[in-house]
C-alpha cells in the first residue's frame, strides 16, 4: 500500500493537481458521453413510437373509410 492516509492519497506526492486533473476530466468526459448517448437513445425511441402511432392512425383511417 503506497498511502498511509486519504490525505496523502489526495496529494499524490505533490502532483495531485495533475493526476486528478487527468482522471477527473476523463471521468467527466466519459460521463458526458454516456449522458448524451442516453438522451439520443430516448429521442430515437420517441421517434419510433411516434411512427408507430402514425401507422396505427393510418390503419384506422384505412379500415374506417
Amino acid at each position, binding site marked *: 500500500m503506497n498511502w498511509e492516509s486519504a490525505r496523502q492519497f489526495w496529494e499524490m*506526492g505533490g502532483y495531485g493537481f495533475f493526476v486528478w486533473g487527468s482522471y477527473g476530466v476523463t471521468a467527466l468526459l466519459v460521463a458526458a458521453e454516456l449522458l448524451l*448517448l442516453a438522451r*439520443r437513445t430516448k429521442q430515437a425511441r420517441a421517434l*419510433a413510437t411516434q411512427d408507430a402511432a402514425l401507422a396505427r392512425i393510418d390503419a384506422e383511417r384505412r379500415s374506417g373509410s
Partner: protein
Amino acid sequence: MSEPQSSAARLPGAPGFNLFHYASPQTFYPLAGRLLWPCWLLAAALCAIGLYIGFFVAPTDATQGDSYRIIFIHVPAAWMSMVVYLAMAFWCIVGLIFNTRLSFMMSSALAPTGALWAFVALWTGALWGKPTWGTYWVWDARLTSELILFFLYCGYMALQAAIDDPRRADRAGALIAIVGAVNVPIIYFSVKWWNTLHQGASVSLTAAPTMATTMLWGMLVMALAAWAYTVGAALLRVRAIMIERERHTDWVRQLAQGGGSRT
C-alpha cells in the same frame, strides 16, 4: 448493384453459417441490446482493477514520483484512439465492399468515442508533461500525431454532419476515413522524422520511466476497460442510429409497438 436487402442473402457456397445474418440492422439490433450490459459491467470491473493496480500496487517512481500514474489513462487512451480509427476504416472498407448499411453505421457510431479518446490522450499528455518537462505542450512525435489524429476524427464527423442524405454521408465519410487511415502512419513517420531534425528544441517521450511489470499490467487492464467501454458506447450509439435511419421500415414500427423493450 443491389444491396442484400433481406438478411438471408447467403454467400455462395457458405455452409449453414450465414455471414450476412447479422449484417442487416433488423437482426443486429436485439443482439446489440443483449451485449450492452455485459460491456458496461466488464468495463467497470476492469477499470476498478486497473485503477487499483495503478494507485495501490504500482510503486512510486524514483525519478518522477507519483505524477507518472497518469500513464494509466494516457497510454490506454492513445492506444484506443488509434485502434478505434483503424476499426472505423475497417468498417468503412467492409461497407464499401459488401454495400451493407450497418457497417457504415458502425463506423459513424465509433467516431465520437474515438475522438473522445484522442482528446483524453492529448489532455492527459499535457498534464503529464507539465511536471515532467515543465511545459504543457511538447512537440513530441507521438503527441503531435495524436493531435493530427484528433483533427482527422473531427474532419470525419464534420463531413458526416454536413451531409443530409445518409447514403452520401456514409460513403463520403468512408472515403475520408480510409484516406485518413492510409495517411496516419505517413503522418507519424514524417512527424517523427521532423522531430529528430529539431531534436535540440524538444525532449521526446521516450524518456518514460522503466516499465515495472505492475505498471505494464495496470496499463493493460485499463486499456481493456477502455476497449470494453468503447464497444458498449458504440453499440448503444449504433442502436440509436439504426432507429433514426430505419424509421420508415416496419421492424422499427413493431419495435415501438412492442413498448420498445430491451429486445
